[in-house]
């Protein structure tokens, strides 16, 4: 038997191997198998600890603000992955096994991202996170920095939308949840974070963190493609006139507009609010976010009813609030809540 004989034939069996979802799943099997523990063992914490200790307090604070929303975001998406698995197996998606296969890979990958940040934060940046110990699942709250900015509100919203979609939600509910998760959280907030991270690495090269981010961003790229494929399916059925799918594009646009407010606030929180010591540049970050949103909403999904000025207005409103916001005070408030919860958990 030669090598070609062992290659499964396209479309053989119950699994549609021509499906984009199958291709994404297969890529996850091939590329998503990195091991967070092994990565840490191989690269080690020492170099990163040395760089971390050399940073000024405001530089550490900027990293802490970025990492806060990544770790709480990963916690939230790991929690919601099970809901995505439920949602993609509903009849609204013709119950295709390929989607479920990819959703299971997504769940594993999100758990691994959580694991990596957990290891990293606990071993390198812990001096900036005295309130990290108590898990949200065990009565804790998000990290005070996350709660202080738009990302925290966005993750809360994500949980609600994913629950609505998974538990009897219709295509409009699913469209909202997928837009929030795959476009808002993964497609703009996280990818904006990678952009910020790349700039910050120029001034503060944290090798292990960078390596982890590289693996994570590759995984997230597949998740975003998956989400856009789901949304395209829903839009296609709406365009075909299927009654239950009417309103899908409207829901996508409304959710995207809502989310850009949270994202703009987070962008300002990690840059302008603290004087941007590691040189991310808020202007460049906004332009990057705008392009990412435009690529997904206009180029890929080609939303019919999009009013780009609504999008800018939502960002402008968020910016106005951000300018008046005393984030330090909000962080202190959440620090206090955390301490109370920690004491209660100890009792």
């Amino acid at each position, binding site marked *: 038997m030669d090598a070609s004989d062992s290659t499964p034939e396209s479309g053989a069996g119950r699994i549609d191997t021509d499906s984009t979802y199958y291709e994404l799943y297969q890529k996850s099997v091939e590329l998503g198998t990195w091991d967070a523990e092994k990565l840490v063992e191989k690269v080690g914490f020492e170099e990163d600890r040395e760089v971390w200790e050399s940073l000024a307090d405001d530089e550490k604070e900027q990293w802490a603000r970025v990492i806060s929303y990544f770790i709480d975001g990963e916690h939230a998406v790991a929690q919601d992955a099970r809901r995505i698995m439920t949602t993609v197996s509903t009849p609204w998606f013709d119950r295709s096994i390929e989607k479920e296969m990819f959703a299971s890979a997504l769940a594993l990958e999100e758990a691994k991202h959580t694991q990596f940040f957990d290891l990293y934060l606990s071993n390198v940046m812990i001096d900036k996170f005295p309130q990290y110990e108590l898990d949200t699942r065990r009565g804790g709250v998000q990290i005070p920095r996350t709660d202080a900015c738009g990302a925290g509100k966005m993750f809360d919203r994500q949980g609600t939308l994913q629950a609505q979609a998974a538990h009897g939600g219709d295509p409009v509910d699913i469209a909202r949840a997928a837009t929030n998760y795959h476009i808002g959280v993964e497609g703009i907030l996280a990818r904006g974070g990678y952009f910020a991270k790349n700039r910050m690495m120029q001034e503060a090269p944290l090798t292990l963190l960078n390596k982890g981010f590289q693996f994570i961003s590759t995984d997230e790229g597949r998740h975003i493609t998956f989400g856009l494929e789901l949304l395209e399916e829903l839009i296609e059925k709406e365009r075909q006139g299927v009654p239950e799918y009417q309103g899908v594009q409207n829901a996508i646009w409304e959710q995207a507009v809502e989310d850009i407010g949270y994202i703009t606030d987070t962008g300002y929180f990690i840059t302008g609010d603290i004087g941007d010591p590691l040189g991310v540049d808020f202007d460049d970050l906004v332009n990057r976010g705008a392009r990412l949103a*435009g690529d997904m909403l206009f180029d890929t999904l080609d939303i019919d009813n999009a009013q780009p000025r609504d999008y800018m207005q939502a960002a402008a409103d968020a910016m106005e609030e951000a300018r008046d916001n005393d984030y330090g005070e909000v962080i202190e408030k959440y620090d206090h809540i955390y301490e109370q919860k920690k004491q209660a958990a100890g009792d």
Partner: protein
Amino acid sequence: MSAQQEEETYELEEYWPTTAWLEVYEADLTASEELSEKMSGWGQGFNGDFVFEINNLPIEENTVGDLPEEVWSALDTGIRQLPDGVLDTVLEDAPEEVQNGIEEREGPLAERAANELLETRIENAPDKVWEGLRRVMPEILNDLLDELEENVTDEGHVYAWIGLEDGDCTGTDTLMELDERDKGFVLTGEYEQWVRLVTGELDVVEGIMSGELELDGDMQKILQYSDAALLMTDVASETSKRFLF
């Protein structure tokens, strides 16, 4: 000149993107009460001046004959109507390249001369015009060639500077170098995208989100004055204009 020909004559200020059009735009910005209101405080404590960077005007691929007909038809008619003797005299001072071009063509002299001039690439046109020809050229073509020479870079870019402060347009200018004047914001796009923008076909926010336009400057200020920034491009699309390409 017939009534129909009179209807087809336009002033330089009607052609976009010329310095004269920019002055009309300046007047429209100044006249807009809505802009005065929404841009109140703009440019105070920061540089609020804009540059519209219009890249790659199609002057390399287009010829004089590709310009709107009303711009060149009088030149074409004028040359074709000149008696050969007079035309010979006019052509005596023509650059050698023009004379050779006419020589290499076939047909009556007037036809050869007219075709040579109309088939000249726009980017080369200022160098191929001589004093004698300018005397028989329509004024608008003369003005446009001056504009091309003085306000369009060799690469075919136009940098339109718009001074803005506290709700007022403080002046306009065209630059040959982007750094010739201080500015706080630069809106950049290819000529084709600018045409879509100033005709209202492309929304400025959609243009930026899709990457067809690029905005460089303080985004906090843009978001703070988002209504004014949008109104500025709306006024540009409402200011009447004719396109050269």
